[in-house]
């Protein structure tokens, strides 16, 4: 979706402000929230792109005004309600008002080392890769109202396939419960001027990780 989360190339957000000796979490609620999110992900109730899509669907003003973990919290409340796992009435009451549903699995402390490793998104291909390194491609001019990982700044642009990264779960379908539909993934590199025009930094190259359905031969 063409939301405010798709920030590449936007102006007006000001300087980057690194924090010296930044702690991992800034408040205890951030710790608990992060852990709750990971534990529920382990329980298999959503996949990563569904969680991303929930945050992208927050109202733009809320998205922009919320800290990172506040966005996660609001996105999580939204998903839990949509999946029928926790009702807004229960969050308002601060207690469960109905029994929980049966989930695939429950994270125990002894399993935590396993979740520190990211999962694999590789899947068996459904067809041979259409592109090879060196191919000139044009990204599609698409504007789905649902989740996509093709950023706006890199749509309808000419680039070059730099590497084939294997075949992976397709975020655009899995985020909306339409299956993993595995697709080939490529590193596609663009000249800065192709993306930003003549005023771009002359030496700049920018790459995205692009799924095959985003691409056509140029």
């Amino acid at each position, binding site marked *: 979706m063409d939301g405010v*989360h798709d*920030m*590449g190339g*936007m*102006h007006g*957000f000001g300087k*980057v*402000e*690194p*924090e010296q000796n*930044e702690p*991992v979490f800034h*408040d205890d*609620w951030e710790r*608990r*929230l*992060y*852990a*709750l999110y*990971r*534990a*529920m992900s382990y329980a298999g109730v959503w996949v990563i792109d569904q969680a*991303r899509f929930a*945050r992208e669907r927050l109202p733009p003003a809320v998205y*922009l005004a*919320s*800290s990172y973990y*506040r966005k996660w*919290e609001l996105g999580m409340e939204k998903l839990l309600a949509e999946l029928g796992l*926790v009702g807004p009435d229960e*969050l308002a009451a*601060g*207690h*469960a008002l109905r*029994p*929980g549903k049966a*989930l695939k699995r*429950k*994270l125990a402390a002894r399993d935590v080392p*396993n*979740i*520190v*490793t*990211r*999962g*694999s*998104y*590789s899947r068996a291909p459904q067809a041979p890769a259409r592109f090879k390194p060196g191919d000139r491609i044009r990204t599609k001019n698409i504007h789905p109202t649902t989740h996509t990982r093709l*950023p706006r*700044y890199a749509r309808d642009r000419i680039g070059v396939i730099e590497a084939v*990264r294997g075949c*992976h779960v397709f*975020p655009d379908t899995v985020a909306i419960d339409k299956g993993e539909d595995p697709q080939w*993934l490529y590193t596609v590199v663009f000249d800065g001027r192709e993306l930003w025009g003549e005023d*771009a*930094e002359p030496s*700049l*190259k*920018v790459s995205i990780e*692009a799924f095959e359905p985003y691409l056509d031969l140029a």
Partner: protein
Amino acid sequence: MDQKHEHHHDDEHDSELSEMQLRVRALETVLTEKGYVDPAALDAIIEAYETKVGPHIGARVVAKAWSDPSFKRALLDDATKAVLAFGVINRVGDHLIAVENTPKLHNMIVCTLCSCYPWEVLGLPPVWYKSAPYRSRAVNDPRGVLADFGVKLPVGTAIRVWDSTAETRFIVLPMRPTGTEGWSEEKLAGLVTRDSMIGTGLAKAPSEVA
């Protein structure tokens, strides 16, 4: 906006619970009562990310690559495989790609769409990495972003920005500082900053750690 919010909220809620404390407390209570989560597992997750997983892992990888040419080749060829042994708690995850800085080319990593970051080698990302200023400007004004970090590259150094738009994750192999000949891997790792592995900084000079 993101950043300011997080920087200034400590003093606001010393005596009363903040909106977020209340929301998260309610969420944890409900999820626990419904049997979805085990509070002991939550504690273990927090402990892992606060005490075990962090940029010290990536720093060891970089120091080894500086010291061992065959490891460096293996790292650039297939980082996922090369860093398997570096996992502190467990093996490192899938789809990791290492990119090498040289005098001619400087690499920088961003996730313009959300906050994708190589957790298993760098830990959780800093607030600035997830903030609107960085996500918006890294792809079209990388020299300006570097200036925000106090880094000025030679004009002749080209810039490559990697936008992490899929489950592939990137770690920058920074240039080894001069004057470090004969240093042990352990000593070299002390020069490798988190930001140098994201591409918003350079490795420290020996004089900075003396």
